């Protein structure tokens, strides 16, 4: 069984993020991680490998050379092969293009099972998984909480739906996006880290992939564009409610919420 895990390198939650003076681009402090939800995807692939015969895990990302760091993290956790779909340092805004590139790579290599994180924590788009599945013409299930391979052609999954959970059986090949709670992602062992440092990262120019050309994946192909960036307006300083007793404070708070904030 061939498993593909798609991962993204994202700015750390604590990273400082600034705008350039022309407000046209973003500068991110050099603190990056594997996307939070992608860790569950890598972990689920590794657990699945432990349950089925002849299984290999490939991990891929579409990003700059720096993104090889997350590929090495995935290898340190237990992935077998790593692929960087090199964007040449050029960030594409349009998720459709990213999904097309990842799907084309998946088509070229051929996979039975694809895992992605539920969404990236930087843009919170939650687009790539379902889009990739569409381009590959395979079924997808979003936000899965439990995963089991029934046989080589079928998986059984529990997923989050509006107001509850659903259990479905899905014919493979298929794509699944992982939700928090599906597993506890492992911390790589030192031997894994050593292996990852030496691992070969396959670098691919997306324009050479099946059914793709440069014109289909460059800036001119993007259907959306950024007009401008802003920094959010700062919240006014907190008003601390005074009072002798908790009761007095609460009374004063309620008055303010009613009269000033109009929140009650």
């Amino acid at each position, binding site marked *: 069984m061939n498993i593909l895990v798609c991962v993204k390198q994202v700015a750390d*939650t604590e990273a400082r993020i600034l705008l350039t003076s022309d407000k046209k681009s*973003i500068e991110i402090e050099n603190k990056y991680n594997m996307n*939070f*939800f992608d860790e569950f995807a890598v972990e689920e692939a590794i657990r699945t490998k432990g349950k089925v015969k002849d299984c290999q895990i490939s991990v891929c990302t579409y990003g700059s050379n720096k993104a090889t760091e997350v590929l090495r993290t995935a290898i340190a956790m237990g992935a077998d092969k790593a692929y960087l779909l090199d964007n040449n340092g050029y960030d594409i*805004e349009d*998720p*459709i293009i990213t*999904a097309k590139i990842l799907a084309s790579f998946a088509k070229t290599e051929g996979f039975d099972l694809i895992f992605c994180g539920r969404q990236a*924590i930087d*843009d*919170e*788009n*939650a687009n790539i*998984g*379902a*889009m990739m*599945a*569409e381009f590959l013409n*395979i*079924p997808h*299930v*979003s*936000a899965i909480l439990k995963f089991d391979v029934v046989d080589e052609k079928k998986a*059984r999954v529990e997923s989050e*739906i*509006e*107001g*509850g959970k*659903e*259990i479905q*059986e*899905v*014919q493979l090949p298929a794509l699944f996006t992982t939700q*928090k*709670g599906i597993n506890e992602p492992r911390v790589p062992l030192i031997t894994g880290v050593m292996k990852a440092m030496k691992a070969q990262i396959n670098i691919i120019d997306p324009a050479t992939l099946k059914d793709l050309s440069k014109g289909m994946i460059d800036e001119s192909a993007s*259907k*959306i*564009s*950024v*007009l401008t*960036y*802003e*920094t*959010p307006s700062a*919240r*006014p300083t*907190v*008003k*601390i*409610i005074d009072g002798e007793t*908790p*009761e007095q404070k*609460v*009374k004063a*708070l*309620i008055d303010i*919420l009613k009269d000033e*904030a109009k*929140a*009650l």
Partner: protein
Amino acid sequence: MSKEIFVFVECKDGSIRKVSYELLSKAKEISQKSSSIVYAVIIGSNQDVLANQLKDFADKVLIVDNEKLSKYRWDTFLSVMEQIIKKYKPYVMFGPSTTTGKDIFPRLAARLNGAIISDAVDVVFDENTLKIKKPLFGGKIISWMKCKDDSTFFVTFRPNSFIVENRSLNGELIKENIDVSEDSRIVSISTEKRETKKVDLQEADFIICGGRGMKGPEHFQDLEEIADIMGGRVGASRAVVDSKWRDYDDQVGKSGKTVSPKLYVGCGVSGALHHTMGMDTSKVIVAINKDPNALIFQYADYGIIDDVFNVLPALKEELKKIKKEI
């Protein structure tokens, strides 16, 4: 180029979700400026009553009624949406950034080779362009984006982004006869719904959130009672969920849900970035914490520095009184 604005109406447990009314209200405001009309699209089974409720909010209501659509599945809903869009060729389609919206919209955009902007919080019509506001990096940066060409444009918005306005449009009901195709590669085995009459966390106007300062799962009962008085919901910080005091479904923050209630009250919440990134778009933020240096006070509009266990009983009593006045 047509300028029609389509809104995908999401239903839940036999009623229309509030977010759908929000999107219709905003769509109508935009359509008045761009001299276009608003279509509500409701897909399901036996939803005549619901379709009637939409008349006030849309110029036209497209109804697709088929027993195969009684439960949401991306494959069946997608086949319907695809045909509707191919028939009407709308300029833009709005949808909710909810579990369902996040499942269907990306796949729909990919199938129709459209343009998509997800998880937006505002839209304006300016210089003959729809400008979409979307926070990035947990709200540290705001971007304004647009669709570059004339492909079908899809935008999903967070719940609680817009105010509901009933304009009594008395729109026309149109039944669409559309074949529904199902993807046989997916078979539903069972569905389990949480038994709750409570409002969805992302749609709640009032959220009272507990942090590690709540000291244990048993103390969340106080928060539940206050949430019930206010018709709102209890949220939880990541530390609380990781300690298994509350379900992941309640988690507010970067790795949980992003919420924008009218009033957010944080109780014993320290205000770690992970948490504040999921709630700093709340309209009014109140923090209750005994530590005057807690980070949450940097985000709050109002703060009470005191032991949360001394404050909560008084808060409960006062809110009860207010609800009686109304």
